[in-house]
């Protein structure tokens, strides 16, 4: 674990009574919480960071294996009075776990065979800086931010009524795919049961190429951002950026 990649944010006055309770339970005064000198808090933060990294691994695994229901379950539930989870992807915002987020992961991603992990396209690898991850747990131990690199397949079904596309769909093809690399910018918060959930996930795309595994070279590719909201686009975002 690289301590340099991790920063702890010690900003009190964030207001949540849960946060005060959490730090109080560790015997941390407000003053103590402004530093990392408190060993109990430091240990707690490390534990939370570990839990978040594990959650992200589970997220990537589920994405890679197409376990989209598991992915949806990792997002914060829609609770009245709280801001719903959201995902920012390709210029669109998908809002609320039970609506936009589900639409993205249950409909759009499977249709486009999107999310499967793949090696970076040759010549398009992210820089070392871009590949650096970080996890920032707030001292309330109930919210956090993280950045993780990604390298995935993205795609969209062919928009055509040709027999070629229809036949390709018979064996799970008929999708135009490409490679994307970038970083996930993730916000987490704990639910009432104390489990970390994703409250916001942004696919910050840094590089994109026409590439599939096994191909000997890659070329840059241009992909249109979302231009149509849901429901005009049945798999579209709730908002455009």
């Amino acid at each position, binding site marked *: 674990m690289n301590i340099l990649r991790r920063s702890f944010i010690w900003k009190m006055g964030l207001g949540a009574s849960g946060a005060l309770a959490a730090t109080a339970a560790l015997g941390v005064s407000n003053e103590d919480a402004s530093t990392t000198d408190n060993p109990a808090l430091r240990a707690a933060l490390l534990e939370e960071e570990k839990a978040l990294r594990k959650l992200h*691994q589970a997220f990537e695994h589920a994405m890679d294996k*197409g376990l989209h229901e598991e992915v949806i379950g990792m997002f914060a539930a829609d609770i009245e009075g709280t801001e719903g989870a959201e995902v920012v992807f390709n210029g669109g915002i998908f809002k609320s776990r039970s609506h936009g987020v589900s639409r993205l992961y249950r409909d759009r991603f499977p249709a486009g065979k999107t999310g499967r992990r793949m090696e970076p396209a040759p010549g398009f690898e992210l820089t070392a800086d871009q590949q650096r991850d970080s996890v920032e747990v707030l001292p309330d131990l109930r919210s956090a931010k993280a950045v993780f690199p990604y390298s995935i397949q993205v795609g969209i079904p062919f928009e*055509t009524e*040709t027999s070629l596309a229809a*036949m*390709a769909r018979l064996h*799970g093809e008929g999708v135009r795919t490409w490679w994307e690399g970038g970083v996930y910018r993730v916000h987490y918060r704990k639910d009432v049961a104390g489990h970390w959930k994703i409250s916001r996930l942004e696919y910050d795309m840094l590089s994109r190429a026409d590439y599939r595994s096994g191909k000997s070279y890659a070329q840059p590719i241009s992909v249109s951002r979302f231009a149509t909201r849901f429901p005009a686009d049945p798999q579209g975002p709730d908002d455009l950026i």
Partner: protein
Amino acid sequence: MRIPMHRFQYTKLTKDQIATKLKTAEGGPKSASPFSNVLNGKTLKIVTNDGPTLEYRFAANKRLTLTEGGKQVTAGYGELTLNQRVFFSHLIPGEQKGYNVFIDQKTNLATVFEVWTSSGIKQGAGANEFTLDDREVQRQIYFGYVDSGKAAPEKLHHYTNRMTGKGIHWTQDTGIETLELYASVANTNFVELTRHIDDLSYVSTSDYVLADDRTVIYNRTECEFSGIHTCFVADLYSVKQVGVRFGFNDKDELEYYMFKGDGEVVGQLAYLENFDDHGIRPMFAPAPRPAPVGGPAPAPVLPAKGARTTYRPVRTFAHMTDEEVHHAAIQRTSVFGVVTGTGAGAAQPAPPQGLGTGNNLPFSDILVGKEFTLRFDNGGPVRDYRIKEMFKLQYRDRSDNVWHDADYRAYEGDDNLAWFGHMIADSKPRASVQVAVDFTNGLATSIESHMGTPYYGNETSYRAIFGVAEMAGPSSLEAPLYVRHQLTDELVGHAFSWSYSDQTTSMHIYSSPHSMSWVIFTGAQALGAEWCSPCVYVKLRPGVYIFCQNEEACNGAQMIELLNTKASHDCGFTYNGGARGVSLGVTGAIGRHIGKFDIVGLYGPKRRNA
């Protein structure tokens, strides 16, 4: 049979009608060759993976007793042998099912085909849901062994891609000849050389099972046609087969007979999977379910019984009348992406190209600055052309003598050979032409296309007409009197993959003088879904051809390509129409020659009833 299978209206036989017909066959199949008699007096217990355990007792006079799941039945059966293999077939009286069983008497390995009719299987979803025809024979394949009391064998028969690309011309003991091109791991492109008079090739869903390095077990079911099922074991050393045909023909007669056959391998196409991919997983098998995080891998979800990769395009092809299509064309006609019309949709951008165009040839200015006349034979049209720019031309048909402006696209398909297309103004039904003009030889061919066939308003019709090109001036053409482009069978037997874009590739098999099939590659470059259509081939020059097809009883779309086999490239046009209007577009692809079947000699007029 004269009516093409894809146009034939097969009777929707009911379950009761089928039951009545099957009752006549409970005594077992017939056979032109004498049955073998190796099973008489034997008892066999066949254990299968994920399937039934079948306990047989074979008696004299081709009678057997089967105990399955505690239930015992007696039925007639037929039996033929091939090398050490015995193949027997029987029905279950009172049920619309039966078994075709292959047993290797040396290894005791067995492959069992359960076959049944009146399946009630539903496919599609929502408004597109449909039930498979009761007459369509279903099959489920089980791999197993004859239980001899010893330990179960570790290796059973299994699916294979080893037959992919092979072609065999079979002659059965019935006198029936078929040409079978096994171009896909899940389909067969076949031609009934004796049953049909037009030598059109068709596609049916198939399975390929490897019994050993020289022996393959095979079946095909003519889904979306008669639904009849053909199943055999073939020895590829001697190229001999024994098998069974089961189902209902075009006259709704039950065909249930066993056969022997002799074959000739007519060629082999390359198959493009990785060399370590042996096609062991059937195409219809689902991917194994991934393990949950930290948990054990769950068992794979087995495909539904009878699952197979079958393209059923006509099920979702909505019928439109000529008038409906013409009304849609008036509302919206798209010519090379430029949309015109009176409907609200005309203001919308043109829909995406039907086929990818990333690998198309660039458009050519070969026609710019030219004025010429195309004079087609046998009272065909005479058209004058004036072309001053890349994408706009003027033409005049001498029948009305009126000059029209039209958008066009042209390619130089070979040296000094123009290949261009445009709409015919104010046509009803909407018409277009795709024209090859050989400015070296003074020859012209036009594919005259229009919306509508006798079957669907939203299918296209086409014909090739031949003539000459006349041009005055410094590049004047002296048109020949007798020499013409002509229909050809030079492409017959060849297969090319055509990559329209880096993500859209289809393999064309030019399987007969009047038809072809196309096969779609999977992500692993296995050849998978396949379908077929009639077509025409025209020879323009050595190595340069026009290929034109309409995907009949499919989506009605037409593809009109100039193939330059020297450059392994094609370029051309798409023409189609439907509820969204009529569209003339462009297409083109990079080709790879995948191989050739030596089959031309099998075609042509034959002496019938001689």
